[in-house]
């Protein structure tokens, strides 16, 4: 009875060591993933004005929509 118990504990210990070793190896092999990031633009960048009032397209749109006056 006593011998059987010793054998069981040994197997568990072996598996525990194996599992810990595998975890350490995996962590060492793959670098930590980058921090999760939403959007590439900063708060100021995404809010900045993009409308170009003097561009030819915009000016043409306003002129054409004033027809026939």
């Amino acid at each position, binding site marked *: 009875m006593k011998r059987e118990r010793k054998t069981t504990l040994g197997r568990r210990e072996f598996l525990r060591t194996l599992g810990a070793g595998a975890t350490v190896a995996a962590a060492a092999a793959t670098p930590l993933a980058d921090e999760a990031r939403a*959007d590439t633009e900063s708060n100021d960048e995404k809010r*900045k*004005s993009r*409308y170009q009032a003097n561009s030819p397209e*915009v000016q043409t749109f306003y002129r054409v929509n004033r027809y026939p006056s």
Partner: protein
Amino acid sequence: MARMKFLCDADRCIECNACVTACKNEHEVPWGINRRRVVTINDGKPGERSVSMACMHCTDAPCQAVCPVNCFYTTADGVVLHSKDLCIGCGYCFYACPFGAPQYPRVGNFGSRGKMDKCTYCAGGPEADGSLAEYEKYGTNRLAEGKLPLCAEMCSTKSLLAGDGEIIAQIYKERVVKRGYGSGAWGWKTAYRETIAS
């Protein structure tokens, strides 16, 4: 600072749906979503009126107010945009918006509808201007290219106006002064006679 607005001249809209098609094509909008729609009242009756509707880019946007993850933001041009990276698809904005602008790619319960999609005023989103990521999530960024929304540029009857609110209001005012409005507009009596007023 200019404030971007849409203005639909309902006296000119002929319900051709070119604005809807142009938007879907330009931004490759997924199935089931129309960022712009044409609403017709009194369809088939005298005095029928059509209005092209999309996100109105409200000053105090209700969608922005109810969003639990704060994914909406207003640009310096007054355009209301949102981040699909932050959106959790809860649907609050959908219920809050009086124009039905926010839409989802799938029908379902919380978490299964996908990311919300809405009109961006052709101004992209919070990704680098003109990048592939921006195009895939939000569509073309025409504003950054010095252009105006394609729906308005495509309008054959020049019904849909887009651009600086003050300028397009001035254009609309010039039209109304010249041709009148509603039943007083040029051609109304010819089309419907004097018996029908609107």
